[in-house]
């Protein structure tokens, strides 16, 4: 296995050599597709001739058949969604390559490096920019303007145009962006209510409360097995940063930094109104100091830097508190509750700052971009798909509502990304709560919300008996309600990559990661933060900051 990395590179190189030729070939066939996305290709809202779109296919080897997922006999390639799309739009899909979820990014990197993109790919912003720069993707301006449905436009309007702006380069719409669910960015505090009750503790509100609860969870044997085997706060795994601005990041300590209005990993405006990198701001030092103390006191799992998968402690009932987004019940908490039906997980906003406010970070409006390979013959097919998909997700597709079973995971849509109103969690919670309070009739809900309502009603009768029911109610309804409380929101001012970031960011983030972790673990004194800031600036951070300010000013 020596030179494994080199070998990988050789593969990339070898395949890209081969790709050169095919690249030029497909560019030639491009002219025909341009402009003449003819009227005659769409008849009665569907494609006249069947369009086959190749997409990357992600297969989760851990996914269980039937368990709230696909009915027997259905598969990734052939399920209610693919059949519905075929029937309504005459579009079908084939896999360009197949990968496990963890390997997806790498596989996509390879596909990009070898210039063998599938017809349609969902890529992150950096990759999107690169693809556009290299002229690999189709301009969608014309087809979007012509075929986008009012519903799709309404969804993008909910971001005040931020989404479409991110997908527009030089005035041309080069991708169909997703709309991030803003709630995904907030790391709520998840606590086991049954442990709190057992130890006679209140729901934590301040950081001191959290520390008190964590210590009690460690020392007072909340699971009652007579062994000192429970922990306070698990930290992020060794492959995940201590703190980031990524959505859906869990076990991170963003909220502890946010106490002092520090936002590491984000580009934020400082007092002077200039954009600055949050990780080097003086406030971040305070957050690190807090974390260092918590680590020293054992409040934070002392081994977190070496853990592959901290979620095992939540699943096995060894941890009773952690930071994570609103949808945790739809993820690992299902296992936690299955393993221990007495576990009563609740989500709250904490810690509140000294001034009694709660501050949280928000990222960009869009993070995923659906790009169409240059030269694809029927760009309008993608818009048709997005119209249908968007309408379905926001509950404005009555036919789909009737035909599609809401219990089947939305992940089985062929091209998948979040495409709903930015505040959909809060919206859903309010709407469903209205029905629970008797203000509206259950029939007024669209099927997805109806299924949340039904799940809630069933769970009320038999609490946590049917775990998926509990999960739906707990995430959409309970967390959604908590998230509707007033809070300070800090926006990320810049996403993307600048010229010198390409060269320097790896070094800079290695430095940041290393310093932060070492300070938290007490291997470095808190004074090391100032050295870090100095080094960071010198090693290219200053230049990157300048470029970010320029680009964000545009």
């Amino acid at each position, binding site marked *: 296995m020596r030179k494994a*990395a080199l070998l990988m590179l050789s593969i990339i190189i070898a395949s890209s050599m081969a790709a050169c030729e095919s690249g030029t070939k497909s560019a030639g066939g491009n002219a025909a597709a341009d402009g003449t996305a003819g009227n005659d290709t769409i008849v009665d809202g569907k494609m006249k001739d069947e369009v086959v779109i190749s997409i990357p296919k992600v297969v989760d080897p851990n996914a269980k058949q039937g368990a709230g997922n696909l009915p027997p006999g259905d598969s990734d390639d052939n399920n209610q969604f693919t059949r519905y799309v075929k029937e309504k739009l005459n579009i079908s899909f084939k896999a360009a390559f197949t990968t496990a979820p963890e390997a997806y990014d790498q596989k996509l990197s390879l596909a990009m490096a070898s210039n063998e993109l599938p017809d349609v790919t969902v890529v992150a912003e950096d990759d999107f920019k690169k693809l556009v720069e290299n002229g690999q993707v189709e301009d969608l301006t014309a087809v979007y303007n012509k075929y986008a449905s009012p519903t799709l436009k309404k969804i993008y309007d909910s971001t005040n145009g931020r989404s479409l702006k991110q997908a527009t380069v030089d005035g041309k719409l080069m991708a169909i962006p997703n709309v991030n669910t803003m709630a995904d960015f907030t790391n709520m505090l998840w606590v086991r209510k049954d442990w709190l009750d057992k130890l006679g503790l209140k729901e934590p509100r301040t950081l001191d409360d959290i520390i008190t609860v964590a210590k009690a969870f460690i020392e007072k044997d909340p699971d009652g097995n007579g062994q000192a085997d429970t922990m306070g706060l698990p930290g992020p795994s060794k492959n995940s940063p201590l703190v980031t601005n990524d959505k859906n990041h869990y076990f991170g300590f963003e909220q502890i930094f946010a106490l002092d209005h520090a936002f590491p990993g984000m580009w934020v405006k400082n007092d002077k109104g200039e954009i600055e990198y949050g990780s080097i701001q003086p406030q971040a030092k305070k957050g690190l100091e807090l974390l260092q103390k918590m680590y020293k006191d054992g409040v934070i799992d002392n081994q977190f830097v*070496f853990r592959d998968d901290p979620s095992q402690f939540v699943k096995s009932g060894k941890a009773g508190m952690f930071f994570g987004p609103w949808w945790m019940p739809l993820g690992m908490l299902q296992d936690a509750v299955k393993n221990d039906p007495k576990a009563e997980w609740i989500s709250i906003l904490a810690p509140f700052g000294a001034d009694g406010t709660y501050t949280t970070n928000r990222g960009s409006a869009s993070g995923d971009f659906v790009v169409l390979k240059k030269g694809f013959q029927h760009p309008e097919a993608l818009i048709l798909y997005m119209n249908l998909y968007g309408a379905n997700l926001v509950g404005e597709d009555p036919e789909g509502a009737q035909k599609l079973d809401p219990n089947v995971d939305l992940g089985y849509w062929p091209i998948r990304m979040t495409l709903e109103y930015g505040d959909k969690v809060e919206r859903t919670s309010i709407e469903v709560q209205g029905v629970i309070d008797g203000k509206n009739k259950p029939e007024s809900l669209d099927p997805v919300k109806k299924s949340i309502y039904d799940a809630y009603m069933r769970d009320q009768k038999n609490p946590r008996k049917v775990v998926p029911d509990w999960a739906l109610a707990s995430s959409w309804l309970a967390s959604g309600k908590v998230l509707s409380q007033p809070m300070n929101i800090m926006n990320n001012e810049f996403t993307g990559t600048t010229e010198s970031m390409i060269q320097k960011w790896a070094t800079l983030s290695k430095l940041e990661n*290393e310093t932060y972790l070492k300070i938290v673990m007490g291997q470095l004194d808190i004074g090391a933060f100032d050295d870090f800031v100095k080094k960071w600036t010198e090693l290219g951070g200053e230049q990157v900051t300048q470029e970010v300010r320029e680009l964000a000013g545009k």
Partner: protein
Amino acid sequence: MRERSNIKHYWMMLIPGLFLLFVFNTYPLFGSIIAFQNYNPFKGMLHSKWVGLENFEFMFRLPDSRQILWNTVYIACLKIIAGIVFSLTFAILLNELRLRFFKRSIQTLVYIPHFLSWVILSGILIDLFSLEGMANKVVQWFGFQPIQFLGSNRLFPFLLVGSDVWKEFGFGAIVYLAALAGINPGLYEAAAIDGANRFQRIRYITLPGIVPTIVLLVTLSLGNILNAGFDQIFNMYNPVVYESSDIIDTYVYRAGLVSQQYSLATAVGLMKSLISFFLIVISNMLAKKFANYRIF
């Protein structure tokens, strides 16, 4: 006449080997040119911009490079030395055993770990050496504070070397055992008659008898000095110990595949290959001089 046609067959048998060599070793070499380009995957190697030695300059200006190079050499040297010392000692001790069955079973037992992959072993090792792991239980029995083996830049390289030795010393001993088997038993008998005890026999017969093998293995391992073990380190390290365990290969992986800096990663890799090449030439010369053994 018959001889000549035989030779033809032998040449034919070379073809599959040469073909594989070309496909997997020679053809990819052309890819190295992206080290001299600002490589852009979409433009491909033919149309990417040429930047000369810029990537190499940047590599040397990187604050990490010195540390990475040092780590690589340091860890590799420790591994080579410790590996030879342990394998050799073990082989000699095993050679002194007279019970055949016992000897065979021990030998089999110690080389089993060689066949386990680092992916599996690293999980076990991380559990063993974590704060609440077995190693720390032992430390605590003796009344010491638990030690952060996995988070200490002082200890982590030794953990890497130690686990590597544990995994490989049994397998490494095989060569020495073979060499030992080649020593003329008559020498031992003569020495015994002259009244040499066991240690004297080891010192004056066994060791001189396998010196060529030792020299050969040491010189050959010089060529490997920049391979400090990607699999092992990649599976065992964490950001806290980058400082002491980040080696060229792990860096190339992170820079090349994770951060997509293909050109820089290739430049680093190419540099490594160049140095390795010279080391192999040198070690070949040394091997020829000391052990009269040559590869080319």
